[in-house]
Protein backbone atom coordinates (compact mmCIF):
# COMPACT_ATOMS: atom_id res chain seq x y z
CA UNK A 1 0.00 0.00 0.00
CA UNK A 2 1.25 3.49 -0.86
CA UNK A 3 1.65 5.91 2.00
CA UNK A 4 -0.18 9.13 1.10
CA UNK A 5 0.17 11.19 4.27
CA UNK A 6 2.95 10.76 6.70
CA UNK A 7 3.25 12.62 10.00
CA UNK A 8 6.64 12.20 11.56
CA UNK A 9 7.44 13.19 15.14
CA UNK A 10 5.16 16.20 14.92
CA UNK A 11 5.10 18.51 17.92
CA UNK A 12 3.30 21.77 18.44
CA UNK A 13 3.79 23.49 21.76
CA UNK A 14 1.65 26.56 22.47
CA UNK A 15 2.91 29.38 24.73
CA UNK A 16 0.67 27.98 27.49
CA UNK A 17 2.71 24.76 27.37
CA UNK A 18 -0.18 22.77 25.90
CA UNK A 19 -0.11 21.15 22.48
CA UNK A 20 0.83 17.86 20.89
CA UNK A 21 4.04 15.89 21.16
CA UNK A 22 5.77 13.27 19.02
CA UNK A 23 2.78 12.50 16.82
CA UNK A 24 3.81 9.81 14.39
CA UNK A 25 1.48 7.96 12.05
CA UNK A 26 0.68 7.59 8.38
CA UNK A 27 -2.40 7.32 6.17
CA UNK A 28 -2.33 4.98 3.19
CA UNK A 29 -3.81 5.90 -0.16
CA UNK A 30 -7.59 5.46 -0.19
CA UNK A 31 -7.74 5.07 3.57
CA UNK A 32 -9.99 6.93 6.00
CA UNK A 33 -8.14 7.53 9.24
CA UNK A 34 -9.83 9.13 12.19
CA UNK A 35 -8.22 11.17 14.93
CA UNK A 36 -10.38 10.45 17.95
CA UNK A 37 -10.12 11.89 21.42
CA UNK A 38 -11.76 14.14 23.98
CA UNK A 39 -11.90 17.92 23.55
CA UNK A 40 -8.49 19.52 23.99
CA UNK A 41 -6.52 16.33 23.29
CA UNK A 42 -4.79 17.91 20.27
CA UNK A 43 -6.53 16.17 17.38
CA UNK A 44 -7.53 19.44 15.68
CA UNK A 45 -4.00 20.79 16.18
CA UNK A 46 -2.65 17.81 14.22
CA UNK A 47 -5.26 18.24 11.47
CA UNK A 48 -4.71 22.01 11.18
CA UNK A 49 -0.94 21.43 11.04
CA UNK A 50 -1.50 19.12 8.07
CA UNK A 51 -3.76 21.74 6.45
CA UNK A 52 -1.17 24.47 6.96
CA UNK A 53 -3.17 26.58 9.39
CA UNK A 54 -0.76 25.94 12.29
CA UNK A 55 3.02 25.96 12.13
CA UNK A 56 4.34 22.91 13.95
CA UNK A 57 7.15 23.41 16.47
CA UNK A 58 9.03 20.39 15.12
CA UNK A 59 8.57 17.29 13.01
CA UNK A 60 7.66 16.68 9.41
CA UNK A 61 4.50 16.34 7.36
CA UNK A 62 4.76 14.59 4.02
CA UNK A 63 2.11 14.19 1.36
CA UNK A 64 2.99 11.70 -1.38
CA UNK A 65 6.47 11.57 0.11
CA UNK A 66 7.03 15.34 -0.34
CA UNK A 67 7.58 17.55 2.67
CA UNK A 68 4.75 20.09 2.89
CA UNK A 69 5.07 21.48 6.41
CA UNK A 70 6.95 24.54 5.16
CA UNK A 71 4.28 25.37 2.53
CA UNK A 72 1.40 27.83 3.10
CA UNK A 73 -2.06 26.27 3.14
CA UNK A 74 -2.94 27.51 -0.36
CA UNK A 75 0.02 25.60 -1.80
CA UNK A 76 -0.60 22.26 -0.07
CA UNK A 77 -2.23 19.41 -1.99
CA UNK A 78 -4.86 19.08 0.72
CA UNK A 79 -8.35 20.45 1.25
CA UNK A 80 -10.26 20.92 4.44
CA UNK A 81 -13.91 20.58 5.40
CA UNK A 82 -14.48 22.73 8.46
CA UNK A 83 -16.74 22.16 11.43
CA UNK A 84 -18.66 25.39 10.82
CA UNK A 85 -19.23 24.65 7.08
CA UNK A 86 -17.33 27.82 6.15
CA UNK A 87 -19.27 28.58 3.03
CA UNK A 88 -18.67 32.11 1.81
CA UNK A 89 -21.90 33.94 2.62
CA UNK A 90 -21.61 36.56 -0.15
CA UNK A 91 -21.31 33.96 -2.91
CA UNK A 92 -23.92 31.64 -4.39
CA UNK A 93 -23.48 27.88 -4.21
CA UNK A 94 -22.11 27.96 -7.76
CA UNK A 95 -19.57 30.68 -6.93
CA UNK A 96 -18.56 28.86 -3.75
CA UNK A 97 -17.87 25.74 -5.77
CA UNK A 98 -16.36 27.43 -8.81
CA UNK A 99 -13.97 29.70 -6.90
CA UNK A 100 -11.03 27.30 -6.72
CA UNK A 101 -11.52 26.27 -10.35
CA UNK A 102 -11.52 29.91 -11.48
CA UNK A 103 -8.24 30.42 -9.62
CA UNK A 104 -6.83 27.48 -11.54
CA UNK A 105 -8.05 29.19 -14.75
CA UNK A 106 -10.25 26.25 -15.72
CA UNK A 107 -12.45 27.01 -18.76
CA UNK A 108 -16.02 28.19 -18.07
CA UNK A 109 -17.67 25.18 -19.69
CA UNK A 110 -15.53 22.79 -17.71
CA UNK A 111 -16.28 24.65 -14.48
CA UNK A 112 -19.99 24.37 -15.20
CA UNK A 113 -19.64 20.66 -15.88
CA UNK A 114 -17.55 19.95 -12.79
CA UNK A 115 -19.88 21.90 -10.51
CA UNK A 116 -22.92 20.02 -11.85
CA UNK A 117 -21.12 16.72 -11.42
CA UNK A 118 -20.12 17.38 -7.83
CA UNK A 119 -23.61 18.67 -6.98
CA UNK A 120 -25.05 15.41 -8.27
CA UNK A 121 -22.56 13.52 -6.13
CA UNK A 122 -23.74 15.30 -2.97
CA UNK A 123 -27.43 15.12 -4.03
CA UNK A 124 -27.90 18.87 -4.38
CA UNK A 125 -28.59 19.34 -8.08
CA UNK A 126 -30.31 22.62 -8.92
CA UNK A 127 -29.00 24.54 -5.90
CA UNK A 128 -26.43 26.55 -7.88
CA UNK A 129 -28.14 29.91 -7.51
CA UNK A 130 -28.91 29.68 -3.82
CA UNK A 131 -26.96 31.54 -1.15
CA UNK A 132 -25.59 29.62 1.86
CA UNK A 133 -28.13 31.33 4.13
CA UNK A 134 -30.90 29.68 2.11
CA UNK A 135 -29.58 26.18 2.81
CA UNK A 136 -30.08 23.90 5.80
CA UNK A 137 -27.13 22.81 7.94
CA UNK A 138 -26.93 19.45 6.21
CA UNK A 139 -27.04 21.04 2.75
CA UNK A 140 -24.35 23.54 3.72
CA UNK A 141 -22.07 20.76 4.90
CA UNK A 142 -22.67 18.85 1.66
CA UNK A 143 -21.69 21.95 -0.32
CA UNK A 144 -18.60 22.34 1.87
CA UNK A 145 -17.68 18.75 1.09
CA UNK A 146 -18.35 19.33 -2.62
CA UNK A 147 -16.14 22.43 -2.57
CA UNK A 148 -13.31 20.45 -1.02
CA UNK A 149 -13.77 17.62 -3.52
CA UNK A 150 -13.49 20.05 -6.44
CA UNK A 151 -10.00 20.92 -5.28
CA UNK A 152 -9.11 17.30 -6.09
CA UNK A 153 -6.90 17.07 -3.03
CA UNK A 154 -4.42 14.32 -2.42
CA UNK A 155 -5.56 14.30 1.19
CA UNK A 156 -8.97 15.45 2.36
CA UNK A 157 -9.05 16.79 5.91
CA UNK A 158 -12.31 16.87 7.83
CA UNK A 159 -12.57 18.74 11.13
CA UNK A 160 -15.62 17.40 12.99
CA UNK A 161 -17.72 18.06 9.90
CA UNK A 162 -20.96 16.65 11.29
CA UNK A 163 -20.82 17.83 14.88
CA UNK A 164 -23.25 20.72 14.33
CA UNK A 165 -25.90 18.46 12.77
CA UNK A 166 -28.67 16.46 14.42
CA UNK A 167 -28.12 12.76 15.08
CA UNK A 168 -30.19 11.47 12.16
CA UNK A 169 -28.56 13.76 9.60
CA UNK A 170 -25.14 12.99 11.02
CA UNK A 171 -25.76 9.30 10.51
CA UNK A 172 -27.00 9.90 6.96
CA UNK A 173 -24.07 12.12 6.01
CA UNK A 174 -21.39 9.84 7.36
CA UNK A 175 -22.78 7.01 5.28
CA UNK A 176 -22.70 9.29 2.22
CA UNK A 177 -19.16 10.37 3.04
CA UNK A 178 -18.00 6.79 3.30
CA UNK A 179 -19.67 6.01 -0.03
CA UNK A 180 -18.00 8.99 -1.77
CA UNK A 181 -14.68 8.09 -0.17
CA UNK A 182 -14.70 4.53 -1.47
CA UNK A 183 -16.16 5.53 -4.87
CA UNK A 184 -13.38 8.06 -5.47
CA UNK A 185 -10.67 6.21 -3.52
CA UNK A 186 -10.04 9.33 -1.43
CA UNK A 187 -7.44 9.58 1.28
CA UNK A 188 -9.04 11.18 4.32
CA UNK A 189 -7.98 12.35 7.73
CA UNK A 190 -11.07 12.82 9.85
CA UNK A 191 -11.31 14.43 13.27
CA UNK A 192 -14.09 13.62 15.70
CA UNK A 193 -14.76 13.25 19.39
CA UNK A 194 -17.71 10.99 18.61
CA UNK A 195 -16.54 7.41 19.14
CA UNK A 196 -19.58 5.94 17.38
CA UNK A 197 -18.79 8.05 14.30
CA UNK A 198 -15.15 6.98 14.40
CA UNK A 199 -15.96 3.30 14.83
CA UNK A 200 -18.49 3.32 12.01
CA UNK A 201 -16.56 5.02 9.21
CA UNK A 202 -12.85 4.55 9.85
CA UNK A 203 -10.34 2.17 8.37
CA UNK A 204 -7.98 3.09 11.17
CA UNK A 205 -8.42 5.07 14.38
CA UNK A 206 -5.74 7.15 16.07
CA UNK A 207 -6.87 7.60 19.67
CA UNK A 208 -5.35 10.72 21.20
CA UNK A 209 -5.21 11.89 24.79
CA UNK A 210 -3.49 14.85 26.36
CA UNK A 211 -1.40 15.72 23.28
CA UNK A 212 -0.12 12.24 22.48
CA UNK A 213 -1.25 9.09 20.70
CA UNK A 214 -2.67 6.35 22.92
CA UNK A 215 -3.39 3.75 20.25
CA UNK A 216 -3.46 3.30 16.47
CA UNK A 217 -5.52 0.38 15.25
CA UNK A 218 -8.52 -0.64 13.21
CA UNK A 219 -11.91 0.04 14.86
CA UNK A 220 -12.41 -3.60 15.96
CA UNK A 221 -9.04 -3.77 17.66
CA UNK A 222 -9.46 -0.39 19.35
CA UNK A 223 -12.80 -1.58 20.72
CA UNK A 224 -11.90 -5.17 21.57
CA UNK A 225 -8.32 -4.71 22.65
CA UNK A 226 -7.75 -1.22 24.03
CA UNK A 227 -4.13 -0.90 25.05
CA UNK A 228 -4.74 1.46 27.94
CA UNK A 229 -7.30 2.24 30.58
CA UNK A 230 -7.93 5.60 28.86
CA UNK A 231 -8.85 3.96 25.53
CA UNK A 232 -11.03 1.42 27.34
CA UNK A 233 -12.85 4.21 29.15
CA UNK A 234 -13.16 6.43 26.08
CA UNK A 235 -14.29 3.87 23.52
CA UNK A 236 -17.61 2.24 24.27
CA UNK A 237 -18.87 1.36 27.74
CA UNK A 238 -16.94 -0.70 30.26
CA UNK A 239 -17.35 -1.85 33.87
CA UNK A 240 -14.30 -1.32 36.03
CA UNK A 241 -13.46 -3.24 39.19
CA UNK A 242 -10.43 -2.47 41.34
CA UNK A 243 -8.30 -5.37 42.64
CA UNK A 244 -4.80 -6.60 43.38
CA UNK A 245 -2.84 -8.99 41.22
CA UNK A 246 -0.60 -11.52 43.01
CA UNK A 247 0.88 -14.62 41.39
CA UNK A 248 -1.24 -14.41 38.25
CA UNK A 249 -4.48 -14.10 40.19
CA UNK A 250 -6.75 -11.28 41.20
CA UNK A 251 -8.93 -11.93 44.17
CA UNK A 252 -12.13 -9.88 44.38
CA UNK A 253 -14.58 -11.07 47.02
CA UNK A 254 -15.30 -14.73 46.35
CA UNK A 255 -14.07 -14.50 42.77
CA UNK A 256 -10.61 -15.28 41.55
CA UNK A 257 -9.62 -13.95 38.16
CA UNK A 258 -6.72 -15.85 36.67
CA UNK A 259 -4.39 -14.36 34.10
CA UNK A 260 -0.95 -15.30 32.83
CA UNK A 261 1.01 -12.16 33.65
CA UNK A 262 3.31 -12.27 36.62
CA UNK A 263 2.65 -8.61 37.41
CA UNK A 264 2.12 -7.89 41.08
CA UNK A 265 0.31 -4.76 42.18
CA UNK A 266 -2.96 -2.86 42.08
CA UNK A 267 -4.99 -3.48 38.93
CA UNK A 268 -8.32 -2.58 37.34
CA UNK A 269 -10.43 -5.25 35.69
CA UNK A 270 -12.47 -4.05 32.73
CA UNK A 271 -15.55 -5.87 31.47
CA UNK A 272 -17.67 -4.67 28.53
CA UNK A 273 -21.43 -4.67 29.27
CA UNK A 274 -22.02 -6.99 26.30
CA UNK A 275 -19.56 -9.46 27.81
CA UNK A 276 -21.88 -9.99 30.77
CA UNK A 277 -24.64 -12.49 29.97
CA UNK A 278 -27.27 -14.60 31.62
CA UNK A 279 -25.52 -17.77 32.83
CA UNK A 280 -26.18 -20.79 30.66
CA UNK A 281 -24.21 -23.35 32.72
CA UNK A 282 -24.05 -24.09 36.43
CA UNK A 283 -20.37 -23.30 36.71
CA UNK A 284 -18.76 -19.87 37.12
CA UNK A 285 -22.02 -18.14 37.92
CA UNK A 286 -22.37 -14.94 39.86
CA UNK A 287 -25.59 -13.92 41.49
CA UNK A 288 -26.77 -10.46 40.54
CA UNK A 289 -29.72 -8.38 41.64
CA UNK A 290 -31.36 -6.17 39.01
CA UNK A 291 -31.10 -2.67 40.39
CA UNK A 292 -32.10 -0.49 37.42
CA UNK A 293 -33.44 -0.94 33.90
CA UNK A 294 -32.96 1.77 31.32
CA UNK A 295 -34.52 1.35 27.88
CA UNK A 296 -32.24 2.65 25.12
CA UNK A 297 -34.21 1.98 21.97
CA UNK A 298 -33.54 -1.49 20.60
CA UNK A 299 -31.70 -2.60 23.75
CA UNK A 300 -31.76 -1.95 27.49
CA UNK A 301 -29.00 -1.12 29.94
CA UNK A 302 -29.38 -3.09 33.14
CA UNK A 303 -27.57 -2.12 36.34
CA UNK A 304 -26.75 -5.10 38.50
CA UNK A 305 -25.70 -5.38 42.13
CA UNK A 306 -23.14 -8.18 42.52
CA UNK A 307 -20.62 -9.29 45.10
CA UNK A 308 -17.83 -7.71 43.04
CA UNK A 309 -19.62 -4.37 42.73
CA UNK A 310 -22.10 -2.66 40.50
CA UNK A 311 -22.06 -3.88 36.88
CA UNK A 312 -23.91 -2.80 33.76
CA UNK A 313 -25.03 -5.20 31.06
CA UNK A 314 -26.86 -4.77 27.76
CA UNK A 315 -29.91 -6.83 26.94
CA UNK A 316 -31.71 -7.17 23.65
CA UNK A 317 -35.27 -5.83 23.54
CA UNK A 318 -36.67 -9.31 22.80
CA UNK A 319 -35.08 -10.81 25.93
CA UNK A 320 -36.39 -8.16 28.26
CA UNK A 321 -39.18 -10.29 29.80
CA UNK A 322 -36.53 -12.38 31.59
CA UNK A 323 -35.39 -9.32 33.50
CA UNK A 324 -37.57 -8.12 36.36
CA UNK A 325 -36.58 -5.23 38.59
CA UNK A 326 -35.17 -6.29 42.00
CA UNK A 327 -35.12 -9.99 41.01
CA UNK A 328 -31.93 -12.07 41.27
CA UNK A 329 -30.38 -13.64 38.18
CA UNK A 330 -27.25 -15.75 37.52
CA UNK A 331 -24.76 -14.05 35.22
CA UNK A 332 -21.42 -14.98 33.73
CA UNK A 333 -18.53 -12.81 32.68
CA UNK A 334 -17.27 -13.85 29.27
CA UNK A 335 -14.24 -11.64 28.70
CA UNK A 336 -12.26 -9.22 30.75
CA UNK A 337 -9.17 -7.07 30.52
CA UNK A 338 -6.71 -6.20 33.24
CA UNK A 339 -5.02 -2.82 33.48
CA UNK A 340 -2.03 -1.90 35.60
CA UNK A 341 -2.20 1.01 38.02
CA UNK A 342 -0.39 3.11 35.40
CA UNK A 343 -3.23 2.48 32.93
CA UNK A 344 -1.31 0.06 30.70
CA UNK A 345 -3.09 -3.11 29.70
CA UNK A 346 -1.50 -6.41 30.75
CA UNK A 347 -0.10 -8.46 27.88
CA UNK A 348 -2.63 -11.24 27.84
CA UNK A 349 -5.83 -9.54 26.80
CA UNK A 350 -9.40 -10.81 26.93
CA UNK A 351 -8.82 -13.48 29.52
CA UNK A 352 -11.70 -15.82 29.96
CA UNK A 353 -10.71 -17.63 33.10
CA UNK A 354 -12.16 -16.97 36.51
CA UNK A 355 -13.24 -19.29 39.29
CA UNK A 356 -15.67 -19.21 42.14
CA UNK A 357 -14.14 -20.27 45.43
Amino acid at each position, binding site marked *: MTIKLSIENLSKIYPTGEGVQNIDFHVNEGELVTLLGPSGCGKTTVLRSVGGFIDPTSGAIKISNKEVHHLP*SEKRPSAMV*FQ*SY*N*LWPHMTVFDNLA*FSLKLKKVKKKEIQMKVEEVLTLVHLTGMEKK*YPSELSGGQQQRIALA*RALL*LEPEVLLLDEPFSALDAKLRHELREELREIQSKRNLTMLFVTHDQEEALSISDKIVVMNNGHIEQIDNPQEVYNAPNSLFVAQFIGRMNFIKGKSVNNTIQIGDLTFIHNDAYTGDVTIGIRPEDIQLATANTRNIEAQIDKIMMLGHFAEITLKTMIGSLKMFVDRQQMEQFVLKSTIPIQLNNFLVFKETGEVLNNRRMEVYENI
Partner: protein
Amino acid sequence: MSKKWKATLLGIGLVMPSFLILLILVMYPVWSSIKTSFTGEDGQFTFEHYIYIFTEPLILTNIRHTLTVTILSCVFVLIIAYSIAIYLRFSQSTVAKWINKTYLIPMFIPGVIAVYGFINFYRDNGWVARIIGDEHMPTIIYNVKGLLMINIWFNIPFTTMLLISALQSIPNSIIEGAKDAGANQWRLFWHFILPLSYRTMLVALTFLFMGIVGSFTAPFLIDKNAPQMLGVSMQQHFSVFNEIEQSSSLAVFMFLLCSIVGYFYIYSNIKESKKEMK
Protein backbone atom coordinates in the same frame (compact mmCIF):
# COMPACT_ATOMS: atom_id res chain seq x y z
CA MET B 1 -63.11 51.45 25.87
CA SER B 2 -61.85 48.20 24.41
CA LYS B 3 -58.45 46.73 25.29
CA LYS B 4 -57.26 47.27 21.73
CA TRP B 5 -58.04 50.99 21.90
CA LYS B 6 -56.36 51.32 25.29
CA ALA B 7 -53.22 49.69 23.93
CA THR B 8 -53.31 51.97 20.87
CA LEU B 9 -53.65 55.10 22.99
CA LEU B 10 -50.88 53.96 25.34
CA GLY B 11 -48.61 53.38 22.34
CA ILE B 12 -49.36 56.82 20.91
CA GLY B 13 -48.89 58.40 24.36
CA LEU B 14 -45.47 56.80 24.73
CA VAL B 15 -44.30 57.83 21.28
CA MET B 16 -45.75 61.34 21.35
CA PRO B 17 -43.20 63.14 23.61
CA SER B 18 -40.23 62.11 21.48
CA PHE B 19 -42.19 62.76 18.29
CA LEU B 20 -43.11 66.28 19.48
CA ILE B 21 -39.49 67.04 20.38
CA LEU B 22 -38.46 65.85 16.90
CA LEU B 23 -41.21 67.98 15.38
CA ILE B 24 -40.32 71.14 17.29
CA LEU B 25 -36.54 70.93 17.33
CA VAL B 26 -35.85 69.29 13.96
CA MET B 27 -38.82 69.23 11.61
CA TYR B 28 -39.94 72.80 12.18
CA PRO B 29 -36.50 74.40 11.61
CA VAL B 30 -36.06 72.20 8.51
CA TRP B 31 -39.45 73.23 7.16
CA SER B 32 -38.77 76.86 8.11
CA SER B 33 -35.42 76.84 6.24
CA ILE B 34 -36.95 75.27 3.14
CA LYS B 35 -39.79 77.82 3.22
CA THR B 36 -37.40 80.76 3.71
CA SER B 37 -35.22 79.57 0.84
CA PHE B 38 -38.22 79.75 -1.52
CA THR B 39 -39.63 83.04 -0.22
CA GLY B 40 -38.85 86.38 -1.89
CA GLU B 41 -38.76 89.83 -0.32
CA ASP B 42 -42.44 90.28 -1.21
CA GLY B 43 -43.30 87.07 0.60
CA GLN B 44 -44.05 85.25 -2.68
CA PHE B 45 -42.65 81.89 -3.85
CA THR B 46 -39.38 82.34 -5.75
CA PHE B 47 -36.26 80.55 -7.01
CA GLU B 48 -34.18 83.72 -6.89
CA HIS B 49 -32.05 82.63 -3.90
CA TYR B 50 -31.16 79.37 -5.63
CA ILE B 51 -30.46 81.21 -8.88
CA TYR B 52 -28.18 83.48 -6.85
CA ILE B 53 -26.21 80.72 -5.11
CA PHE B 54 -25.76 78.77 -8.35
CA THR B 55 -24.69 81.78 -10.43
CA GLU B 56 -22.65 83.82 -7.97
CA PRO B 57 -19.01 82.89 -8.77
CA LEU B 58 -17.84 83.17 -5.16
CA ILE B 59 -20.50 80.75 -3.88
CA LEU B 60 -19.88 78.39 -6.79
CA THR B 61 -16.18 78.36 -5.89
CA ASN B 62 -17.16 77.66 -2.27
CA ILE B 63 -19.33 74.72 -3.39
CA ARG B 64 -16.49 73.34 -5.53
CA HIS B 65 -14.02 73.84 -2.66
CA THR B 66 -16.36 72.12 -0.19
CA LEU B 67 -16.91 69.14 -2.49
CA THR B 68 -13.18 68.83 -3.25
CA VAL B 69 -12.18 68.96 0.42
CA THR B 70 -14.97 66.57 1.40
CA ILE B 71 -14.26 64.01 -1.33
CA LEU B 72 -10.48 64.14 -0.83
CA SER B 73 -10.87 63.87 2.95
CA CYS B 74 -13.26 60.92 2.59
CA VAL B 75 -10.90 59.14 0.20
CA PHE B 76 -7.82 59.71 2.38
CA VAL B 77 -9.62 58.80 5.60
CA LEU B 78 -11.09 55.63 4.09
CA ILE B 79 -7.75 54.49 2.66
CA ILE B 80 -5.83 55.18 5.87
CA ALA B 81 -8.53 53.87 8.24
CA TYR B 82 -9.08 50.72 6.16
CA SER B 83 -5.36 50.03 6.07
CA ILE B 84 -5.09 50.48 9.83
CA ALA B 85 -8.18 48.32 10.40
CA ILE B 86 -6.81 45.51 8.24
CA TYR B 87 -3.45 45.70 9.98
CA LEU B 88 -5.07 45.61 13.42
CA ARG B 89 -7.42 42.76 12.45
CA PHE B 90 -4.80 40.44 11.03
CA SER B 91 -1.59 41.34 12.84
CA GLN B 92 -0.64 39.94 16.23
CA SER B 93 2.45 42.16 16.57
CA THR B 94 3.26 44.41 19.54
CA VAL B 95 2.97 47.47 17.28
CA ALA B 96 -0.57 46.41 16.35
CA LYS B 97 -1.44 45.98 20.01
CA TRP B 98 -0.16 49.49 20.78
CA ILE B 99 -2.03 51.06 17.85
CA ASN B 100 -5.14 49.23 19.01
CA LYS B 101 -4.80 50.82 22.43
CA THR B 102 -4.16 54.35 21.20
CA TYR B 103 -6.01 54.94 17.94
CA LEU B 104 -9.18 56.17 19.65
CA ILE B 105 -7.42 58.93 21.64
CA PRO B 106 -8.20 61.75 19.11
CA MET B 107 -11.91 61.09 19.67
CA PHE B 108 -11.59 62.26 23.27
CA ILE B 109 -9.87 65.58 22.50
CA PRO B 110 -12.30 68.49 22.07
CA GLY B 111 -12.33 69.82 18.49
CA VAL B 112 -11.30 73.42 19.24
CA ILE B 113 -8.39 72.31 21.41
CA ALA B 114 -7.22 69.88 18.76
CA VAL B 115 -7.40 72.54 16.04
CA TYR B 116 -5.43 75.07 18.12
CA GLY B 117 -2.89 72.37 18.96
CA PHE B 118 -2.61 71.58 15.27
CA ILE B 119 -2.15 75.26 14.41
CA ASN B 120 0.62 75.64 17.01
CA PHE B 121 2.30 72.58 15.65
CA TYR B 122 2.15 73.24 11.91
CA ARG B 123 1.92 77.05 11.46
CA ASP B 124 4.76 78.80 9.63
CA ASN B 125 6.56 79.59 12.90
CA GLY B 126 5.20 76.58 14.82
CA TRP B 127 6.99 73.70 16.50
CA VAL B 128 7.65 71.75 13.33
CA ALA B 129 9.04 74.88 11.62
CA ARG B 130 11.37 75.43 14.59
CA ILE B 131 12.63 71.86 14.30
CA ILE B 132 13.08 71.63 10.53
CA GLY B 133 13.75 75.32 9.89
CA ASP B 134 11.34 78.00 8.57
CA GLU B 135 12.74 77.78 5.04
CA HIS B 136 11.81 74.07 4.79
CA MET B 137 8.35 74.47 6.27
CA PRO B 138 5.53 74.16 3.68
CA THR B 139 2.40 76.26 4.20
CA ILE B 140 -0.07 74.04 5.98
CA ILE B 141 -2.18 76.32 8.15
CA TYR B 142 -4.65 78.67 6.37
CA ASN B 143 -4.36 76.31 3.42
CA VAL B 144 -6.35 73.37 2.11
CA LYS B 145 -3.51 71.01 3.11
CA GLY B 146 -4.04 71.84 6.76
CA LEU B 147 -7.77 71.37 6.46
CA LEU B 148 -7.32 67.97 4.85
CA MET B 149 -4.83 66.95 7.53
CA ILE B 150 -7.09 67.94 10.41
CA ASN B 151 -10.10 66.27 8.76
CA ILE B 152 -8.08 63.08 8.48
CA TRP B 153 -6.92 63.40 12.08
CA PHE B 154 -10.44 63.94 13.37
CA ASN B 155 -12.11 61.19 11.35
CA ILE B 156 -9.64 58.31 11.36
CA PRO B 157 -10.46 56.97 14.86
CA PHE B 158 -14.22 56.61 14.37
CA THR B 159 -13.87 55.27 10.82
CA THR B 160 -11.20 52.79 11.93
CA MET B 161 -13.42 51.68 14.79
CA LEU B 162 -16.33 51.01 12.42
CA LEU B 163 -14.13 49.17 9.93
CA ILE B 164 -12.40 47.06 12.59
CA SER B 165 -15.75 45.87 13.86
CA ALA B 166 -16.71 44.89 10.30
CA LEU B 167 -13.44 43.07 9.74
CA GLN B 168 -13.66 41.32 13.10
CA SER B 169 -17.06 39.98 12.18
CA ILE B 170 -15.46 38.07 9.30
CA PRO B 171 -14.70 34.70 10.91
CA ASN B 172 -11.15 33.37 10.63
CA SER B 173 -12.65 30.21 9.25
CA ILE B 174 -13.83 32.05 6.12
CA ILE B 175 -10.31 33.32 5.53
CA GLU B 176 -8.91 29.85 6.15
CA GLY B 177 -11.44 28.33 3.76
CA ALA B 178 -10.39 30.79 1.08
CA LYS B 179 -6.69 30.08 1.65
CA ASP B 180 -7.45 26.38 1.52
CA ALA B 181 -9.12 26.91 -1.86
CA GLY B 182 -5.91 28.49 -3.10
CA ALA B 183 -6.49 32.23 -2.61
CA ASN B 184 -3.35 34.32 -2.16
CA GLN B 185 -3.25 37.57 -0.11
CA TRP B 186 -4.53 39.78 -2.92
CA ARG B 187 -7.40 37.46 -3.87
CA LEU B 188 -8.23 37.06 -0.20
CA PHE B 189 -8.63 40.82 0.01
CA TRP B 190 -10.43 41.31 -3.29
CA HIS B 191 -12.85 38.35 -3.14
CA PHE B 192 -13.49 38.06 0.60
CA ILE B 193 -12.36 40.89 2.85
CA LEU B 194 -13.60 43.73 0.65
CA PRO B 195 -17.02 42.26 -0.26
CA LEU B 196 -17.65 41.27 3.34
CA SER B 197 -16.80 44.72 4.71
CA TYR B 198 -17.98 47.10 1.98
CA ARG B 199 -21.34 47.71 3.66
CA THR B 200 -19.66 49.09 6.74
CA MET B 201 -17.37 51.07 4.46
CA LEU B 202 -20.48 52.62 2.93
CA VAL B 203 -21.79 53.48 6.42
CA ALA B 204 -18.44 55.02 7.29
CA LEU B 205 -18.43 56.95 4.01
CA THR B 206 -21.92 58.31 4.73
CA PHE B 207 -20.91 59.49 8.20
CA LEU B 208 -17.66 60.92 6.89
CA PHE B 209 -19.31 62.82 4.06
CA MET B 210 -22.03 64.29 6.25
CA GLY B 211 -19.57 65.24 8.98
CA ILE B 212 -17.03 66.88 6.68
CA VAL B 213 -19.39 68.62 4.27
CA GLY B 214 -21.08 70.42 7.15
CA SER B 215 -18.01 70.95 9.33
CA PHE B 216 -17.42 74.38 10.79
CA THR B 217 -14.80 74.58 13.56
CA ALA B 218 -11.79 73.31 11.63
CA PRO B 219 -12.54 75.17 8.36
CA PHE B 220 -13.28 78.36 10.31
CA LEU B 221 -9.96 78.22 12.16
CA ILE B 222 -7.61 76.63 9.62
CA ASP B 223 -8.92 77.26 6.10
CA LYS B 224 -8.12 80.39 4.11
CA ASN B 225 -10.64 83.20 3.70
CA ALA B 226 -11.58 82.33 0.16
CA PRO B 227 -12.76 79.95 -1.04
CA GLN B 228 -14.59 78.79 2.06
CA MET B 229 -16.25 75.59 3.13
CA LEU B 230 -20.05 75.82 2.93
CA GLY B 231 -20.45 75.62 6.72
CA VAL B 232 -18.36 78.79 7.17
CA SER B 233 -19.94 80.46 4.14
CA MET B 234 -23.43 79.75 5.49
CA GLN B 235 -22.54 81.24 8.88
CA GLN B 236 -21.19 84.38 7.21
CA HIS B 237 -24.30 84.82 5.03
CA PHE B 238 -26.44 84.33 8.10
CA SER B 239 -24.66 86.42 10.76
CA VAL B 240 -22.25 88.74 8.94
CA PHE B 241 -24.17 89.63 5.75
CA ASN B 242 -27.60 89.00 7.33
CA GLU B 243 -28.68 87.11 4.15
CA ILE B 244 -30.97 84.60 5.83
CA GLU B 245 -32.60 83.48 2.57
CA GLN B 246 -29.24 82.71 0.90
CA SER B 247 -27.95 80.85 3.95
CA SER B 248 -31.24 78.89 4.04
CA SER B 249 -30.79 78.00 0.35
CA LEU B 250 -27.23 76.85 1.06
CA ALA B 251 -28.52 74.76 3.98
CA VAL B 252 -31.15 73.11 1.78
CA PHE B 253 -28.52 72.44 -0.89
CA MET B 254 -26.24 70.86 1.69
CA PHE B 255 -29.14 68.80 2.97
CA LEU B 256 -29.77 67.54 -0.58
CA LEU B 257 -26.09 66.65 -0.98
CA CYS B 258 -26.21 64.59 2.21
CA SER B 259 -29.51 63.03 1.10
CA ILE B 260 -27.90 61.77 -2.11
CA VAL B 261 -25.14 60.07 -0.12
CA GLY B 262 -27.71 58.78 2.37
CA TYR B 263 -29.78 57.38 -0.49
CA PHE B 264 -26.92 55.15 -1.67
CA TYR B 265 -26.45 53.88 1.86
CA ILE B 266 -30.16 53.14 2.35
CA TYR B 267 -30.43 51.61 -1.15
CA SER B 268 -27.53 49.25 -0.53
CA ASN B 269 -29.00 48.29 2.87
CA ILE B 270 -32.39 47.51 1.34
CA LYS B 271 -30.70 45.46 -1.37
CA GLU B 272 -28.75 43.46 1.21
CA SER B 273 -31.82 42.99 3.42
CA LYS B 274 -33.77 41.66 0.43
CA LYS B 275 -30.97 39.20 -0.23
CA GLU B 276 -30.99 38.08 3.42
CA MET B 277 -34.81 37.80 3.45
CA LYS B 278 -34.78 35.36 0.49
